[in-house]
């Protein structure tokens, strides 16, 4: 017994050490030099492959993250703010010293498909490899060929500024075990080719789920949560439910409404704004009609989720809405209509608009405060805009009018209070 008592802590210690090695031990590997790549350098210079890659890089909106404000496209140079610290966005132009100039396709594939850097280091999932792992090898090759065809830009990236324990890259082993399933997209033979194309684009390159699903405290999205809507960390916008659910989902949207929003930034059901405005301008407006229809077909097949518990009606909801109705009549009705019906092609409707009725009220609150232009697209090069009301309306007035539009007409969403408005008064620039 005496010996056993001594033995037990030792075994426990050994187990802890073994686990620690498994979780935090080295995972290094060597890069594949371009000369040793199985992909011949000449084949990467094929103009058709490069053109295909340019289209796919646009669908994936690579430039959206990999370009700094006012900086060269794809040259990185900015930091992505996360709740865990700032993650620098790398230069993906073919500069040898600071970009992908010395990368082989094998290195690129390892990053996109497996979320590992050239030396086997685990990449922070601010790079959405949780989605990109579904991208096919052929498409990845085209994107790589395109990136390698860009003019090289010398721009070093800063070091990550993360708090412990996130600063230890190997802590990502545990994260990956929870949230990352490596593997290319597997078509569903029971579905049409169009549906499968849409699913491939939405789940893979489009990485829609990275915003349109809630993240938990570790910044991950549980495997079974798909496009159910969620608050975007740090940016404080709400990316709505993309299923056909009501009150915050795409209930009542036709396939054409989805295509219109992605192509022009506007639709009969609502307009893109905030981060989605940048996605439409930089990415989706350039997608082919066939791909946009495929995306719509896939989204329309997502069954509505069980409706969330109806928000209770606080005792002052009615007073708030009545105050809000006055603000609405004075400042909003002229453009959005007395019944929140909007003006086709100009101002979005507010009745039945999923951005108005999303669960948090953040989107409507921020839109009232910030105003702004609808996305600039080839179809809408001189967009109309909404005045920012941050200077004109108090927190209480914004709360009242947002409560009114969230509960008016056919909308049935929760109230918004003045305290919440003051939280969102700052203007985002990222």
């Amino acid at each position, binding site marked *: 017994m005496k010996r056993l008592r001594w033995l037990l802590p030792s075994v426990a210690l050994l187990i802890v050490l073994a686990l620690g090695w498994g979780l935090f031990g080295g995972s290094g590997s060597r890069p594949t030099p371009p000369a040793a790549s199985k992909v011949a350098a000449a084949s990467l210079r094929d103009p058709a492959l490069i053109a295909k890659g340019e289209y796919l890089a646009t669908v994936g909106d690579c430039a959206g993250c990999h370009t700094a404000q006012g900086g060269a496209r794809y040259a990185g140079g900015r930091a992505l703010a996360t709740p865990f610290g700032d993650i620098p966005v790398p230069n993906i132009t073919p500069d040898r010293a600071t970009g992908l100039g010395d990368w082989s396709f094998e290195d690129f594939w390892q990053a996109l498909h497996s979320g590992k850097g050239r030396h086997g280091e685990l990449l922070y999932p601010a790079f959405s490899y949780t989605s990109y792992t579904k991208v096919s090898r052929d498409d990845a090759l085209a994107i790589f060929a395109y990136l390698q065809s860009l003019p090289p830009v010398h721009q070093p990236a800063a070091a990550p500024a993360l708090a412990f324990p996130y600063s230890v890259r190997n802590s990502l082993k545990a994260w990956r075990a929870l949230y990352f399933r490596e593997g290319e997209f597997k078509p569903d033979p029971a579905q049409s080719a169009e549906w499968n194309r849409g699913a491939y684009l939405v789940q893979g390159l489009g990485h829609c789920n990275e915003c349109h699903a809630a993240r938990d405290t570790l910044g991950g999205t549980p495997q079974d949560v798909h496009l159910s809507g969620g608050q975007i960390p740090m940016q404080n916008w709400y990316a709505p439910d993309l299923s056909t659910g009501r009150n915050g989902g795409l209930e009542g949207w036709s396939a054409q409404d989805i295509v219109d929003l992605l192509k022009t930034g506007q639709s009969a059901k609502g307009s893109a704004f905030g981060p989605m405005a*940048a996605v439409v301008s930089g990415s989706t407006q350039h997608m082919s009609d066939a791909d946009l229809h495929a995306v719509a077909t896939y989204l329309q097949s997502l069954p509505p989720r069980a409706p969330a518990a109806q928000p209770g009606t606080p005792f002052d909801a009615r007073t708030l809405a009545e105050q809000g109705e006055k603000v609405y009549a004075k400042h909003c009705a002229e453009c959005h209509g007395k019944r929140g019906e909007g*003006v086709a092609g100009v101002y979005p409707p507010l009745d039945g608009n999923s951005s108005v009725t999303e669960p948090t009220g953040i989107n409507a609150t921020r839109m009232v405060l*910030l105003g702004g*232009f609808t996305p600039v697209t080839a179809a809408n*090069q001189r967009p109309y805009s909404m005045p920012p009301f941050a200077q*004109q309306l108090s927190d209480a007035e914004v709360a009242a009018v947002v409560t009114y539009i969230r509960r008016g007409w056919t909308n049935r969403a929760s109230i918004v209070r003045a305290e919440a408005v003051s939280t969102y008064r700052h203007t*985002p620039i990222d």
Partner: protein
Amino acid sequence: MKTNASLRHAKPFGVAILFAVALWYGAASRAADHPTIPDTLQQRIAACTSCHGVHGEGTPGSGYFPRLAGKPAAYLVRQMQDFQNGLRKYAPMEYTVRQLPPAYMREIAEYFAAQQVPYSRSPLPPVSAATLARGEALLGKGDPARRIPACASCHGSQLTGVQPSTPGLVGLPYDYISAQLGSWRTHTRATVAPDCMAEVANRLSESDITAVAAALASRELPADTHPQPAGSVTPPLSCGVLGATGDPS
């Protein structure tokens, strides 16, 4: 009988008229119910005019939002580009103009450049006569000992600006001018190199900034507030916004 007969005919006729009137009224009231939105630039740029005024007159009462009316169009385009590129930092402006394409920015700039609206006074803090005199000296003569050129040497003899890229300064609120001069010193306002205005702002002392902002805000307006023609001044510094590419002097 005759009357009765005509009445019998008249009844359906009257009903038809009533029906038509009701239809017309319904359609009219529905039309009045629905917003009618004019297809004008002014309507499109509500996001700009809610702070800068429908004619770019600024909001002198608030003391901050600057006047855009009558500023040279190329200057206004440059400012929007500087906000887009993060050279000029002010989150609401960066957010608003971030996506605008060059042609639309040009159109918006030309709209404001063409507006002619009267200037109005904005609030002025209490400053001493000595401060105002120092400000007037900086506006008109500069301070050669500290290598500070006169404001008028670039912004025009009446400080109404110079085509195509130098803004007028007259009528700008005290708060706005002092905030901008401060921004150049803290690098939250910059423009393409060589950034001559950053040079000048860094040669000013804090009391100079108060003086020059107060003197500008209290100045009587010249009769002609239009920018001077292009080429009518020879700037003492080399400025990127004026096409210079060399090092600042």
